[in-house]
Structure formats: structure tokens, C-alpha cells
């Protein structure tokens, strides 16, 4: 333990400092596109301890820009480090309670946080894959996750959990590997993308691909990256993750009322095309920060995985038929102000599950923060997760007894 670690007091309900692990796989992975990934790495973090009968494992599936770092901290020397992306849910005493559960989170294939993706070196060429990396689908991710489960010796997850694109992976688990999970938690998701969702993704892709620094996806060879394009893509995406209300509140602090969220950056209008309103600089800052950490080709792949997701494709377009073989119990949750994957979309999942006569619970959480709500410690949401996972924990300790 370094001295820096000693100077920083972590919250008592934090998983603390964690070290990601890289798992290498040599068994070729057949992909939905017809192509094959011969070798690949998966970057994984785990929290808590796997019990003797391996019945207490939770799989966390990340969304578009997430990775394996779901909880805790990496760097004891950095006092300003932010914890993992779902830290509010994972830790001792939190909903995914690490005193009971062994929590697993991985960076999905095609990502850019350590798992094999477009920025990884292609062993055939010795150069980054770039645009040669195969298109990866949700089904492929789940196949890779199942291989990881095999490696960890987990036959059956106590629960598979995910929000947004993560929720789609949960659905795929319930459909493709019905015997390998006892509970499916699908949060702020949709059965498949609508034309409007795909339209936003197309704007994001066009922003990236039309950036002169994109170089047909081979920007690594030019020692550059499409910063402007990824920034724009993220700016558009970010707007869809928030709600009108949350933007008004965030940028409406100057006035007595919320002022429609029109707080000025410098207190007056510039009568030019520079930044006038705070929301402008906020979005640009968010976009630029993101562009410096997220690989453009990975972003393109993630948006394609979203667009292509359709669990009904093998079932005559009928979602209830897709769930026919599922044996797990389902918890579906949505957030009232989420307009990217609105509550109606979650209810479509619930209705399909009811039609398929599955065990399902559904909650519509009142929240102003839009799609991003699923990442936030909203009291009713946290309490519901805690109550549900409490039952799951009781089952897995019962199984151990």
C-alpha cells in the first residue's frame, strides 16, 4: 500500500482499489456477420468473492461508452480520480452487495478499454485493425461473455444486469442461454431501436466519418484521430441522454426561476457565433473529453451494435416467442423522463414477457434526469434494486446451504 493510498479515505461502501485482469482466448469466436475472431482478449474487473458452489455471481453489462471499470478506484496517487461508472450500485451495502455477490464486469469486444477492438494490433498485419475489425453484435458480445463465464467456472449467473445497451445484452442472455441465468435485470432499454434512435446514431457516425482526420478509419497510421468528429458525435449523443428538465435545472441557476436553462457563460450576449450560453461550452467540454478517451472506430461499432440489435429476428418479429425458452425471472425498469428509450419501450418488453407467461416485475421510476437516470443513485431506483437483489442473495445463500 502506497503512502498516497493512506492519505485518501475511500467511502466505507466502496469496493476500494481494484486491478483489472486481462483474459486471453484462443478458441475462435464465430460472429453473427459470418466472420470469425481467431484470438481475443477480454478486460475484466471483479468485486467480491465467488462462493463455493459458484451461485452468487452477477454479470454487469455495460452500455455504449462504458467499460469493465464499473466500481472502485484504480490509482491511489490520484486524489481526484472518479470511481467506476456504476459505483453507486456496487459495493458493500449497495444494491449489488459485494458482501453477498461476486460481481463481474468486462469491456466488450470492439471496445477500447483493453479488450480486443479496432485499436488493437491485428496479428496478421502488425498494425491496428481499424476498419478491418469485424462488426460485432450484441449476440457476439454475449457469446464472448459466456466464454468468460466458462473460464471463471460460472455455470449460472445469479443475475445478469444492464442498462440501455447493457439491458439488450441481458435480453440476449435470457434468449440464447436460458439455463445460465436465474434473474434478468433490464433497465432503461428497448426491444430494438426505432427509426429515431437509428437516426441519431447515423448523425454520430457521419460526424466521425466526415472528419478529415478519420482517414477511412486508418487514422492510427497517421498519428492522429478524428477529434472533431467524435466530439460532435458525443455532443449529439449526450443531448439524447439528458432531458429538457435536467438541462433547464443544470443551466438555469442564475435566475430566480429556472430561466429555461439559458444561463450565459460571460453574463452577456456576444452577438457573434462564439459560445454565449453555458450549455454550449458544457456540451463541447463533454464531447472533447470523451473524444480524448474513446476510440472513434469503437464508437462506430457500438452504434452499429445498437442499430442491429433485434432479438426477434429469429422469431417472426415476435418478442414473446423470443423469450419462450427463458426460465429466469425478469425485473424491467424505466425512467419517466427518458426519451431515448422511453417507458413505453420498456413496457413493450414487459408485455412480451407477460404474453410469454414469464415471471416479470416492472417499475417506472419518476426521475428528471432522462436516459442517464439509470446511472444515478435515485432513491426509489436504488431501493428497488436493493429489495430485488436481496431476494436473489437469499436464494444463492440458500443454494449454498
Amino acid at each position, binding site marked *: 500500500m502506497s503512502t498516497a493510498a493512506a492519505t485518501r479515505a475511500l467511502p466505507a461502501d466502496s469496493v476500494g482499489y481494484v486491478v483489472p485482469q486481462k483474459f486471453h482466448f484462443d478458441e475462435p469466436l464465430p460472429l453473427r456477420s459470418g466472420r470469425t475472431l481467431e484470438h481475443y482478449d477480454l478486460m475484466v474487473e471483479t468485486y467480491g468473492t465467488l462462493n463455493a458452489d459458484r451461485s452468487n455471481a452477477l454479470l454487469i453489462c455495460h452500455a455504449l461508452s462504458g467499460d469493465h471499470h464499473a466500481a472502485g478506484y484504480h490509482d491511489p496517487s490520484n486524489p481526484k480520480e472518479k470511481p467506476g461508472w456504476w459505483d453507486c450500485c456496487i459495493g458493500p451495502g449497495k444494491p449489488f452487495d459485494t458482501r453477498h455477490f461476486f460481481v463481474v464486469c468486462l469491456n466488450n469486444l470492439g471496445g477500447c478499454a483493453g479488450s480486443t477492438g479496432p485499436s488493437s494490433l491485428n496479428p496478421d498485419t502488425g498494425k491496428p485493425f481499424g476498419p478491418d475489425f469485424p462488426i460485432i453484435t450484441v449476440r457476439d458480445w454475449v457469446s464472448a461473455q459466456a466464454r468468460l463465464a466458462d473460464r471463471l467456472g460460472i455455470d449460472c449467473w445469479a443475475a445478469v444486469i444492464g442498462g440501455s445497451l447493457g439491458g439488450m445484452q441481458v435480453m440476449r442472455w435470457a434468449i440464447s442461454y436460458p439455463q445460465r441465468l436465474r434473474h434478468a435485470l433490464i433497465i432503461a432499454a428497448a426491444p430494438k431501436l426505432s427509426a429515431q434512435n437509428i437516426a441519431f446514431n447515423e448523425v454520430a457516425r457521419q460526424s466521425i466519418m466526415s472528419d478529415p482526420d478519420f482517414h477511412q478509419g486508418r487514422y492510427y497510421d497517421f498519428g492522429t484521430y478524428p477529434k472533431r468528429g467524435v466530439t460532435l458525435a458525443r455532443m449529439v449523443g449526450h443531448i439524447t441522454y439528458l432531458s429538457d428538465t435536467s438541462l433547464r435545472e443544470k443551466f438555469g441557476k442564475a435566475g430566480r426561476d429556472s430561466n429555461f436553462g439559458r444561463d450565459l457563460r460571460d453574463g452577456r450576449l456576444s452577438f457573434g457565433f462564439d459560445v454565449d450560453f453555458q450549455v454550449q461550452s458544457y456540451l463541447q467540454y463533454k464531447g472533447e473529453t470523451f473524444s480524448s478517451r474513446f476510440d472513434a472506430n469503437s464508437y462506430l461499432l457500438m452504434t452499429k451494435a445498437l442499430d442491429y440489435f433485434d432479438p426477434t429476428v429469429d422469431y417472426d418479429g415476435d418478442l414473446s416467442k423470443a423469450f419462450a425458452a427463458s426460465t429466469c*425471472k425478469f*425485473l424491467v425498469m424505466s425512467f419517466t423522463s427518458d426519451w431515448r428509450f422511453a417507458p413505453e419501450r420498456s*413496457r413493450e418488453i*414487459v*408485455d412480451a414477457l*407477460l*404474453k410469454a*407467461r414469464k*415471471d*416479470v*416485475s*416492472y*417499475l*417506472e421510476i419518476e426521475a428528471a434526469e432522462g436516459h442517464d437516470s439509470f446511472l444515478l443513485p435515485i432513491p*426509489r431506483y436504488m*431501493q*428497488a434494486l436493493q*429489495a*430485488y437483489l*436481496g*431476494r436473489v442473495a437469499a436464494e444463492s445463500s440458500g443454494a449454498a446451504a
Partner: protein
Amino acid sequence: MNLRADLLLIQDWIAPGSRVLDLGCGDGAFLAHLKATKGVQDCGLEIDADNIFKCLQAGVNVVEQDMDKGLRNFDTGSFDTVVLAHTLQALHRPDEIVEEMLRVGRNCILTFPNFAYWRHRLSLLTEGRMPKSPQLPHEWYDTPNLHHCTISDFDRLCRSRRIRLLQRTVVDDDHRSTWPMRLWPNLFGINAIYHITR
């Protein structure tokens, strides 16, 4: 288990291993009881956040849905029994929910307070005011009850809609049935319990 007396009465009408939909399932105690004692496959509808939380704690399947907006998302005949306990009078269109219950369930169980109970009649007659009682504790202006009905009213509804009565029980507050209730249910019955089908 401390189960409401009306629920204890109706549990005998529910077949072991059947599928039960409880409309307005509250804290889920009834469904949890049916799961434990009869191994039913459960589904509860509820809109109150505290109750939904308690259902999750109890391991009961609960769907946050307002039944006043219909049951269109439930398939015809997809449940063996649909239960509506002490809520009928609080719905906007009781007749429509009864129709929907009969569509979704093979049989249905309803309970409601009988507005024609003699004490209610007496208070209206002597005081000229809306009756209040342990079953109807609210003032006229803040009551959740929109459509009070009597046993005679519900019998008429069943006849006019060709709804078949499987069983009907009329009970007092302690859910006992006495001989005056059996002779003059609409006058002496405080709570009505119907088991219907089509």
C-alpha cells in the same frame, strides 16, 4: 401470516398451481401467501411505490400499471383467476374492468363494500348525509370511491352482461356470515364477495 379476512375467504376458490392476476395487489401479501400455500404463478398490478417495494421484498411479481387505463396488454384467457379486492368502487368504469377481468381470466373474484347496508341507508335517511363507516371512512369530497354499488346493483350487472355467478358470499366486518345476511343480503351484508365467470 396476517392476511385480510376477505382474502382468507377467497383463497379457497383458487386452484393450486394456477395463474393468478391480482389487480391492486397492495403489499403482495395475498400473492405471497398463495405462492407459498398453493404454488400459484403470480402477477400483481399496483401503482403505489411503497407497495411495489414491499412486493419486491416479498418476491412477488409486480407490474407498475394503472388498471384504470385497461388491461389491453394481457392476453385473453392468460390467467386462471383474476382478483379485484375492495377496489371496484374506486375505478372510473367498473363495468369495463369487470369485462376486462372476464376476458383475461377464466374466472374472477371481486369484493366490494355493500352501499345498501342498513346502517348506510339509515344515516342517509335520518341525517341526510353521505354515510361514513369503518368500510367507508372518507368524507364525500376526498373519497377514492367513485362508484358505490349495492349487491342488487352488481347482481343486475351480472344478469345484463350474461355473467355467470359461481359463488357469492356476503359477510360482516369480521367476515362472518350470519342468517340475516343470508336471508336479506342487500340489507344486512357489509361486504360482498363474488366469484364469477362467463
